[in-house]
């Protein structure tokens, strides 16, 4: 039996790093409950969707919920209440819009560890610099540059687009 056999993790289904992280927990014996739409089973196989062959999806308990319905969100919250941790990889703000953001979840379950997988980090930046431990720590100088951010819409969309690769 794995080291994390007493751990319960709720995973909101996604693509790429989130599911891989959830796989790590499942391989270590945690109970990982994956929440997704039933219709996910009907999506065509693609580079971003290996369906029944999805190795990174091994070891899960698959729960189909419609999070657009209040009753679906309520069911998700009930599971979250009983869990130790949550993994989500949606675009920043999506969980909040679904009514499943960290504030809501931590209010229901103060011991919950809420894991957020993003490309560029959430908005607004939630992290404040840690207290300066020694006087030698300083920040690198800011150079002026034209403001431009990485094409984040593109990056996120490349994960969420369904793509059928012709072979």
């Amino acid at each position, binding site marked *: 039996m794995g080291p994390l*056999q007493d751990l319960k993790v709720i995973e909101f289904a996604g693509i790429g790093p989130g599911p891989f992280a959830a796989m790590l927990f499942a391989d270590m014996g945690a109970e990982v409950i994956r929440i997704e739409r039933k219709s996910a089973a009907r999506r065509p196989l693609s*580079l971003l969707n290996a369906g029944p062959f*999805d190795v*990174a999806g091994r070891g899960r308990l698959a729960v189909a919920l419609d999070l657009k319905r209040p009753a679906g969100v309520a069911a998700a919250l009930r599971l979250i209440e009983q869990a130790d941790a949550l993994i989500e990889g949606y675009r920043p703000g999506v969980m909040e819009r679904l009514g499943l953001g960290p504030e809501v979840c931590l209010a229901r379950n103060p011991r919950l560890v809420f894991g957020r997988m993003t490309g560029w980090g959430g908005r607004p930046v*939630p*992290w404040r610099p*840690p207290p300066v431990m020694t006087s030698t720590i300083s920040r690198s100088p800011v150079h002026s540059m034209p403001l431009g951010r990485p094409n984040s819409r593109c990056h996120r969309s490349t994960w969420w687009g369904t793509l059928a690769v012709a072979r």
Partner: protein
Amino acid sequence: MGDFGGGALILAWGMMAAIWAAQRSGQGQVVDAAMADGAALLMATIYGVKAAGLWSNERGQNLLDGGAPFYGVYACADGKFVAVGPIELPFYQEFLRRAGIDDPMLANPYDVATWGEQRKRLAAIFLTRTRDEWCALYAGADACVAPVLDLDEAPQHPHNVARETFVEVDGVTQPAPAPRLSRTPAAIRWAPPLPGANTEAVLRNAGYTDRDIDELRSAGAIE
């Protein structure tokens, strides 16, 4: 990828899992992290796609391994590079439009048979401008073109500056700890110590008296 992705991170992860179990059971165990195993684990998702029949075993034939002309790195006129990734058609069309590319051979990005030729043509096009000229051309566009920054440039990129992704400790620029925890954040505690810098403090903390320490020093046990 081997030492740090498939090695160190997997070791740290496995150890935390085992530490968690030890806290509950009172029993420890051995965590054997081989980089070969960890590196293989990083390929899990790709093995799934391969099992689904959608990943070629040949290098350069797949969407994300440099095979696709619209997903890769291109050299620019000044020897610097851009990373290009407009996988979806609307982004790819914007990518072509901004650069004024109307070559019919480049119109269908998903025609795998012509990928080789498409890559060659795009490579030639990217050599006509500097990296920063390309990025200026694509600024604000949803065309998925981003500069490949070198080690000096990366800490200065506005996104990294805003997130304080890099910090400086004793004059050494380095990445800040990740990931970011909201309640008990990680922190760089001090610069790397020279050998022996903390010998006495650590031993005293472990219960050694000053006399013990002197004896150890006379015996040549501690330096």
